[in-house]
């Protein structure tokens, strides 16, 4: 990107060196999680397709939990806080109010992650009773070590404090600029964090009030349906928490890279307000097959979910129109000929565009998941991981990686180590995910289950309508391997960029929207109003289902035994000890 970088403008690092250090630290935490997550992803892909089984199948859930938690909690959310700190400071054009406070929330998030990761990786060490093979969907009756829940709680508190940091910066800015509209990036950060505050009510209650005391032995039992419902209260909006950084980049950075301007600032604001309002009252659509929740509540969740297609379709229009604007400014012509005028050799651009393309495909499989009747066809099959590897696994992950190629020089004053490797990396990801996700979707339609180490059964074969299951397995394994290679190329490229010479004046200002905020009503910036409506919608969607669950099973549930994920290691430690003891006793006692 060198030829475009030397603009003479100061970079983010030049203007805000202290904040740039926090952003770099958060991004590095994210990349380390990504690299580790990719190792576990590769092991999993090769294991379940029976191409190469490096681990015992009983350790599969340790691997699966590590992959899930590292990817969708650590990688995405560390990147989010880094990006949001950059976007907040950049758009309000002022440093954070207290850099010590900013480092504090970052430190809490790191501490929480380390606790949870230690608990998960403890599953590989039979000598310890620490284990958390509960998967990313960590609801009861599966039980993890308290360290896991404690780590999650501390991590989430860190994100709350990060949100308060952004709000603090905004309020300080607003006090000095009382008549100004909130800058677009700041608006996106604030609405996303407000959505996060609403969403995390569910998981905070689930973890602090039920799961943690239960794993500490304070309760004998809890209501599994209640914790499941509270999990999904958070478990759906969290997908938008992953997605909003990608949207922020598509709306505010991609148009500039394409050589154009954002088509409409007001449309961007409407989209983020819609996500604030609609993200949370939909979680029950993950529970279509759960007994104990009335069909009517599920239907309401389905209807709300379908409304959520609106902001994504608005985004498809606005972002593509902004890119088209760039192409036409670069001399592109014709109904589709303008596509050739785009900077396809730029890995940041190509990566984000390919991510958007895969998101369009994920939109379709998402509609299948959301439809209550068709969902029964694919529920708990590997179709579902196929879907979310298109959304969080590509729309989000590939956008974040591609955007890093643009953002990293702004944070380091150094050029990217290799642009061609970057371009190859994003294309390899796209091809790898095309193969893997396609195989997962098709296998799901044949009924092949997800979350299974050995999806092969004696006396039963999955019937493939076309091709064969072994072909699909091979496709999945090759795709997973390409994704692993792509991740390693990305992390290495960024690491090696530290060795390139320092430059100055490589700042990249972002272009002004075509339709600015002045074209939108001021009520859009009334965050209190939208936050209030979001809370009301959540009460409407959840009050009756939760009341009915508690009414039937009680707060501490209809008595399901916990399934502690530490039984295996404990047994493995105790049995040899008992054996030795028996042998010793046998040798003494005639």
């Amino acid at each position, binding site marked *: 990107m060198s030829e*475009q970088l030397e603009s003479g403008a100061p970079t983010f690092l030049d203007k805000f060196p202290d904040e740039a250090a926090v952003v770099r630290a958060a991004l590095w935490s994210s990349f380390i999680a990504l690299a580790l997550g990719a190792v576990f992803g590769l092991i999993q892909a090769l294991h379940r397709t029976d191409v190469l089984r490096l681990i015992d199948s009983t350790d599969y859930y340790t691997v699966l939990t590590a992959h899930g938690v590292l990817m969708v909690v650590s990688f995405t959310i560390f990147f989010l806080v880094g990006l949001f700190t950059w976007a907040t400071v950049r758009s309000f054009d002022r440093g954070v109010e207290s850099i010590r406070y900013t480092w504090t929330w970052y430190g809490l998030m790191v501490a929480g992650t380390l606790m949870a990761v230690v608990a998960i990786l403890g599953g590989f060490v039979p000598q310890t009773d620490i284990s958390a093979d509960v998967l990313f969907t960590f609801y009861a009756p599966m039980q993890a070590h308290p360290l896991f829940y404690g780590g999650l709680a501390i991590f989430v508190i860190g994100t709350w404090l990060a949100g308060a940091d952004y709000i603090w910066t905004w309020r300080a800015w607003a006090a000095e600029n009382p008549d100004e509209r909130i*800058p677009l990036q700041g608006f996106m950060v604030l609405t996303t964090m407000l959505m996060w505050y609403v969403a995390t009510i569910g998981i905070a209650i689930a973890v602090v009030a039920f799961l943690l005391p239960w794993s500490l032995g304070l309760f004998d039992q809890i209501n599994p349906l209640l914790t499941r419902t509270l999990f999904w209260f958070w478990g759906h909006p969290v997908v938008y928490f992953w997605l909003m950084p990608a949207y922020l980049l598509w709306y505010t950075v991609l148009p500039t890279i394409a*050589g154009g301007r954002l088509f409409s600032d007001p449309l961007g604001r409407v989209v983020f307000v819609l996500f604030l309002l609609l993200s949370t009252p939909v979680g029950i659509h993950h529970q279509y097959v759960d007994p104990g929740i009335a069909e009517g509540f599920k239907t309401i969740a389905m209807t709300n979910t379908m409304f959520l297609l609106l902001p994504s379709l608005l985004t498809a229009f606005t972002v*593509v*129109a902004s890119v088209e604007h760039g192409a036409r*400014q670069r001399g592109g012509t014709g109904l589709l000929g303008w596509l050739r005028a785009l900077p396809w050799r730029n890995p940041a651009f190509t990566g984000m565009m390919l991510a958007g393309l895969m998101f369009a495909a994920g939109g379709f499989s998402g509609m299948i998941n959301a439809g209550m009747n068709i969902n029964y066809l694919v529920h708990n099959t590997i179709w579902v991981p196929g879907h979310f590897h298109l959304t969080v696994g590509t729309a989000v992950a590939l956008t974040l990686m591609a955007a890093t190629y643009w953002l990293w020089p702004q944070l380091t004053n150094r050029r990217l180590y290799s642009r061609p490797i970057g371009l190859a990396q994003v294309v390899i990801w796209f091809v790898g995910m095309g193969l893997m996700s396609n195989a997962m979707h098709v296998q799901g*339609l044949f009924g092949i289950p997800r979350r299974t180490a050995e999806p092969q059964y004696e006396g039963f074969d999955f019937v493939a309508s076309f091709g064969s299951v072994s072909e699909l397995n091979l496709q999945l394994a090759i795709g997973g391997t390409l994704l692993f290679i792509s991740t390693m190329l990305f992390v290495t490229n960024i690491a090696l960029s530290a060795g390139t010479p320092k430059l100055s004046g490589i700042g990249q200002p972002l272009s002004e929207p075509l339709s600015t905020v002045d074209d939108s009503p001021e009520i859009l910036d009334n965050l209190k109003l939208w936050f209030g409506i979001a809370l009301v919608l959540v009460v409407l969607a959840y009050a009756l289902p939760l009341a009915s669950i508690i009414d039937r099973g009680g707060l501490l549930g209809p008595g399901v035994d916990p399934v502690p994920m530490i039984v295996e290691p404990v047994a493995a430690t105790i049995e040899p000890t008992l054996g030795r003891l028996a042998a010793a006793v046998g040798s003494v006692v005639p």
Partner: protein
Amino acid sequence: MVPTMSGENTVREIGHDEFDPKGTLVLILVYFGVLSVMWVFMYFVEFLGNDLTVLV
């Protein structure tokens, strides 16, 4: 945001009123076409690819 940055590759500035995103319309129509075909395909996968579901 700072004022418009004209990239080095910009050959002409196009303002709000001159820009008509026809290409975007074409792409979105293609996407809706694909979605519709996939929905019809899904009907075959779900209902014609499986046995009858008995509702009790």
